[in-house]
């Protein structure tokens, strides 16, 4: 029993706590992957789903194609930036949650008796 208790304490304040630190990188990488952050940034100003107009011979047609492509790029930019913003908010939430987890982690074993007894006393 004593050996198991020692094992628990050494894990909680050793590898257990370390794993919370390392989860920063893992969680942010997963988030970046899920929200396709790298591709969306790289193609931020590209036309929306590559829908491109090809200019004809006349100046009117060239102008119309240029306008269409500008609109396509604007739509693409809006959709991508909105999605990236969603990713950014999620990243902030992950950072806050993980930071809180890191701070609280070593306190949890100490807080248990305090809360259990304190709750009865108060």
């Amino acid at each position, binding site marked *: 029993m004593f*050996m*198991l208790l*020692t*094992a*628990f304490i050494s*894990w*909680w304040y050793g*590898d*257990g706590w370390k*794993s919370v630190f390392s989860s920063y990188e893992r969680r942010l990488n997963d988030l*970046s*992957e*899920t*929200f*396709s*952050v790298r*591709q*969306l940034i*790289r*193609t931020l100003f*590209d036309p*929306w*789903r*590559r*829908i*491109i107009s090809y200019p004809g011979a006349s100046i009117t047609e060239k102008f119309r194609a240029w306008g269409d492509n500008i609109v396509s790029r604007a739509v*693409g930019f809006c*959709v*991508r930036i909105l*999605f990236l913003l969603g990713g950014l908010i999620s990243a902030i939430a992950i950072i806050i949650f993980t930071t809180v987890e890191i701070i609280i982690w070593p306190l*949890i*074993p100490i*807080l*248990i*008796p*305090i*809360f*259990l*007894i*304190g*709750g*009865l006393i*108060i």
Partner: protein
Amino acid sequence: MSQTVNLSSQRAKEARLGKRIGKTGYTICVSVTVASAGVSLFGLITGFPFALTFLGLSLLALVPALWWKRRLSVLPPKGKTLDDRLSLDVLVRLHSNQQMQPQAMWSSIQGHWQAQFFSNHLLVGMDAVTGSLSTDPADLPAALDVAAQIADQNQSQTIELGFVVAGLMLTSPQFEQLLLKIKSQPSDVMVMANWLGRNLRESRQSKQSFGGIGRDWAFGFTPLLNKFGQNLSLSIAKHGAHFGSLTQSDGVLAVEGAFNNNAGAVVLLGEDGIGKTNSVYALAQRLIEGNTVPSLAYHQLFSLNATDITSQARGAGDLENIMISLVNEAAHAKHIILFFDNSQLFFAEGPGTFDAGQILLSVVQSRAVPMIFAMSPSDFQRLRTHNQSLASLLTPVTLQEPPQAKVMEVLEDAAVLMENNSKVLVAYEAMREAYSLSGRYNQDQAYPGKAIALLEQSIAHSDNSIVSAQSVQKAVEQTYGVKVGSVAPTEADALLSLEDDIHKRMINQTYAVSAVSSALRRARAGVTNPKRPIGSFLFLGPTGVGKTELAKAIASTYFKSESSLIRLDMSEYQQPEDVQRLLATGQNETSSLLMSVRQQPFAVVLFDEIEKAHPNLLNLLLQLLDEGQLTDNSGKAASFKDCVIIATSNASAQTIRERVSRGESLEAFAGELTDELINSGQFKPELLNRFDDIILFRPLTPEELGKVVQLMMAEINQTLASQNIAVELTAAAVGAIVAKGNDPRLGARPMRRALQKAVEDTVAQKILRGETNPGDKIILDAPDLTL
């Protein structure tokens, strides 16, 4: 190292605690955590007095849940000692009062899938393994040492349960005996341990990284490609992939390297079956796993099939439009690699075919879309001649036939897929047999494709959903018509009475029949050199004494059909160019010996009247008898290892006739006759030496010719059986026919003519005159015959 498991170690205790908590304990803890947290939150909002206590309770349940989830249920290895490295799967199965000896260890772990992986694939029952293991505690450390070595070999810090199983098996002399009894080797256990190690490593490293949910917003639409092509990446992402060792193959890495070095298009070169298509699938798997060079990150692989595109186009112009649209779409969408499987079909020449060479040339020049072509070296050579500009822009990556160990790894990966898809168990002996037999009988494809194809065919012959070596043998027997399986009792009886069966249609020539029968028995029992033909014989003797008839009799009795006789009349091969005809390839080459043997590898090959052949053909025969194979003009071998080779010759016929008529026995002058053949320059000594036996046929006596007449009569009666008429010859009639048909120079050959004239004509007249009715038996005497 020589150590045993310390059941009181911290990891062992943690493992047992983790087992006790289990998933149920974890679920309870999480439930209590959530419920208590809820109550606590409610209390904090409403002012409920024990809110903090419930928060404490929530944390109290959370702590063991976290400990179990992040530590006890995984228990990663830590350190170099056995206790630090033993897998959790092993530790949880060992009790605190466990007997530490091999048999008890096996009994504890045999229920795990990794233990079953070994027993199933080796086709060894669990009880048989138990019975073969030692009960001596002193034997366990050696087994664990081997397990640790296997883990090191597999670059695994954890000593997996499967490695312990392998250690127990490899250190048991009784288990080795057990393996030898079932025609397996101890090295098979090692191979399987490495197979398991590779699977575990790959499954742990496997991670899909295909661009996330916003990927399609970064790249373009591909409606046409979706319609005309197959998205390999999507297919692998949806259904999973298991290309295992192929993802690390030289070919796949070379393709990646070429694109990383700015190649616009790569051509994968290799023979059919070498794995060109699978290499591209393996590349798609690497791309999905994000395990690739930066320039290919997040690329999707689309496979285009020339037949599909052609079938959906309305004309040549339409085809070009579709191709241009497909390539444009891929270029605009970005991050797409186009794969042209069987690329030669895209560059076909001639009327009614489709040549996309010019369209693809401009794309490759502009580097608008990365492309991979797959074709054989000979097709690439044709492309060089036909479209030099395009060929020079392609970066060639040649796939080499892998060595046996690599082929076996690919087979192991393929077996896993077959087991999942067909719900069968592929025994390791089946894989080994598929490698060996496909190498022997399939000369048209390269490894590993031919071995995989054979293993797939063998699924249809599985017994109780187990694909064994026998299943593979049955598949080979069905596909190639050869006998490779073990000898069944009925077949053994037939082999032992082969002489009797042959003599049912052969009169006398006892020595010849016996020599050939013995050769067939030796081959079937597996005691001959498997790298040479089953048997090779030179039949010497006068015309009409049964040389060709014996070849036919062997084809009919042992090879089950006279159509298994491949007969080559050597008088047709007297010019040097005639010899080339024998080695020609192509479906229309009806006189090609190699084509005949490829279609019918289990046959009697008869070189009739060999003395008339061109000397080049005799040289060819030397190679055939030596190596059991001949190579065609394109370098592909055709195997004669399941053939009986018979050459006949009338050389020295006169000498044989004279010496036999003087009363000498064949055996007495056989050696002298062989010397005479060499000295007279009729045959080279190296050719005669390569035959298993030189068999002399003696002229038939009048009594034997009489028996031949009776055999021929039996054939005539078989024909007449459909009319329900039978014919019988009296002894006088037989004597008359022999007297008429006997010609010492031509042996029994004129006998058929004499019989036809004497019997068939007589019977025909009787039938036409209405003198014979169905059910009649005609007895012909000498005076009745029209001689």
